[in-house]
């Protein structure tokens, strides 16, 4: 049974920022838009494990906010007084403080006082009070549109921007899933995708998707976009020698722009102008012409720092104008208790994603029926997709009708998917050395005690007098036994009681 390797999506922006140098972080905090984006969005990625990370972001935000406008000097003990005095709260407080220090937002000085990073403090204050001349929230394109009268150039409205974003992003996803499309995405996309280990080179025939790529497909759009952008950042700083600070500033600024508004490229640094082309390819920006002096952010860009809920509510409101049925962009799956699944979609991409873990049965003009069974889920598990990813995909794409039930997905289906995953994990194989045939119980005990102090015992059985020793400890236990044998020979003189265990693999 091959062991399933689960790749965690460690490509979240907090971990990327944590790894930067302190001086880089200081420079990053000089733009108010960046401070706001980090405050809102990066803090949300603090607790990567959702079961442990609840309220950690809120606590961190509250700590920063409290220090933001205060003029008093606070020490760690002062801050601790604000927290309820039980163990769990204290540990969360320490964790939040630690994460803030890693981001270099809170600095502990030699005098044991804790201060906010001075440039972060100043710029965030400016952000909240609206001061400064930084123009960090996007420079408007002030000239009137030259082509507004002619009909060769239509002014992009929100619908056009959405379409553009959707086409470009789905192009990338289609390419990963492997549906036959005419055009494959540009070279920079291919580079990012291979670097992120989402796809790898197959001998001679191009790229094929990896386990991590499968997991990527099941994530929500926001996580996907950020994972992509972070890999792009790595690539950009290594190969293209772009200034990381400027690139990050641009990303965070994009998150605060208004949809449907055009912004001027003046005031963007050279690095940032280079970015514009690549970002157009990913569907984050729309430009009327390659050399145009303005750009329009699409919905993918404006919801960059807003988290998931923004995309759901935005797409829901945009679809209402389209006379669609009640299924929105996000919610189109209905799961029944008999493991049957109905997906109200005709998008090739979504059907391909469903094919990863369901057994598709029939396709109608607006709907696809499928079944979740052991084989299909096992196929997904073998590709490295976890049960929780399948369940969260189904939950986030559940049809609005499903939300009217007490529990979103039928508990039978959820439990069964998890049981199928546990089936694969029933056996865990560890290599070890088996020590058997101890002549006397005393010998066995001596060796067992020594191995226990070394901490290398994997299994032992008193009745059978056998010990399983981990590979790491084998040499030392062997040496110990040999020493004991030599000791006994030199002590006792006769060899009758000198038996000890014979190691067998």
């Amino acid at each position, binding site marked *: 049974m091959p062991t399933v390797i689960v790749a965690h999506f460690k490509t979240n922006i907090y971990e990327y920022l944590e790894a930067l140098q302190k001086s880089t972080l200081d420079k990053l905090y000089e733009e108010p838009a960046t401070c706001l984006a980090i405050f809102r969005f990066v803090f949300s990625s603090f607790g990567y494990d959702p079961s442990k990370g609840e309220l950690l972001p809120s606590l961190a935000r509250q700590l920063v906010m409290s220090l933001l406008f205060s003029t008093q000097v606070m020490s760690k003990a002062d801050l601790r007084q604000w*927290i309820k005095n039980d163990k769990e*709260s204290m540990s969360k407080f320490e964790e939040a403080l630690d994460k803030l220090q890693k981001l270099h937002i809170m600095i502990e000085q030699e005098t044991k006082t804790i201060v906010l990073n001075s440039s972060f403090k100043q710029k965030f204050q400016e952000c909240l009070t*609206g001061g*400064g001349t930084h123009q960090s929230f996007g*420079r408007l394109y002030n000239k009137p549109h030259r082509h507004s009268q002619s009909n060769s150039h239509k002014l992009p409205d929100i619908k056009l921007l959405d379409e553009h974003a959707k086409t470009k992003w789905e192009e990338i996803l289609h390419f990963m899933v492997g549906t036959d499309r005419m055009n494959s995405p540009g070279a920079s996309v291919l580079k990012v995708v291979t670097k992120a280990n989402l796809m790898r080179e197959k001998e001679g025939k191009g790229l094929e998707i990896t386990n991590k790529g499968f997991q990527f497909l099941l994530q929500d759009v926001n996580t996907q976009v950020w994972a992509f952008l972070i890999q792009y950042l790595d690539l950009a700083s290594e190969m293209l020698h772009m200034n990381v600070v400027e690139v990050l500033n641009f990303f965070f600024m994009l998150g605060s722009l208004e949809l449907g508004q055009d912004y001027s490229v003046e005031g963007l640094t050279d690095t940032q102008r280079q970015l514009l082309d690549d970002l157009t390819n990913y569907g984050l920006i729309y430009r009327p012409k390659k050399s145009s002096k303005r750009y329009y952010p699409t919905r993918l860009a404006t919801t960059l720092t807003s988290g998931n*809920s923004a995309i759901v509510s935005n797409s829901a409101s945009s679809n209402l104008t389209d006379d669609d049925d009640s299924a929105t962009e996000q919610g189109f799956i209905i799961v029944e208790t008999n493991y049957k699944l109905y997906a109200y979609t005709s998008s090739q991409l979504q059907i391909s994603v469903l094919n990863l873990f369901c057994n598709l049965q029939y396709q109608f003009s607006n709907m696809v029926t499928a079944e979740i069974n052991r084989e299909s889920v096992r196929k997904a598990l073998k590709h490295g997709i976890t049960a929780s990813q399948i369940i969260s995909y189904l939950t986030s794409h559940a049809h609005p009708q499903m939300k009217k039930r007490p529990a979103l997905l039928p508990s039978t289906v959820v439990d069964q998917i998890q049981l199928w995953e546990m089936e694969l994990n029933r056996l865990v194989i560890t290599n070890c050395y088996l020590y058997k045939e101890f002549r006397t119980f005393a010998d066995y005990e001596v060796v067992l005690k020594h191995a226990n102090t070394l901490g290398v015992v994997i299994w032992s059985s008193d009745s059978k007098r056998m010990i399983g020793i981990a590979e790491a400890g084998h040499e030392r236990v062997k040496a110990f036994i040999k020493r004991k044998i030599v000791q006994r020979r030199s002590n006792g003189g006769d060899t009758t009681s000198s038996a000890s265990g014979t190691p067998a693999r």
Partner: protein
Amino acid sequence: MSVLKDTSTVNEEDANLLVLIIDTNPIVWNKSNFPLKEALRHILVFINAHLALKHDNDVAIIASHVGVSKFLYPIPTHENSDKTIFPNMYQKFRVIDEKVIANMSALFEDVDTPNNYPDKASSMVAGALSMALCYINRITKADEIGHVKSRILIISVSPDSPYQYISIMNCIFSAQKLCIPIDVCKVHGTDTPVFLQQASHITGGKSVWTLERPVSVIKRLSMLDMYAQFVCQVSLI
């Protein structure tokens, strides 16, 4: 009937709705050494800070004036508001700040209603509270997922009016039923506001009396106390 939403479990995905009731009695504000303009500046920064915490956070502002209470934000307008983008400020902050200032100026220009009202020393807190509760009720009903958690903050300067006692108590009990905490911040005034103190006590909100040094106190103290409810499991006392 409406189902009591489970407001005890706090979720990271919650959107917080803050309804701010500002007591704008001009006579009482004139008497204090902390002018309304200055206080308004602090309040706007506080609103921006609240909006900055999360993308989904929302705010509603009601002015409790002499004899009348009015919504300052959001007001449904029929004309297309001008879309000037200000590059130095986050758009959402700016829009709200401008609207509040514009509507408050309009409120102060109307001098007839306050003049005709007999009790000029108090403000229409009961009316403002009822409007706030109705607004929260509407938002909660429209929100299907149940992620909007609301709270009310009253910034008060004028003393209690005995005529409003019953109305205020009714509002307090409705807020208690809907699990909406009412926080009170009394900026100026020598007497302890009994009704508002009861309001915050019954609904589980916080109350702050700042009788000396009102400057910047609104900002700091409000921020310290306000989110205690939501961060309560861990939290700030």
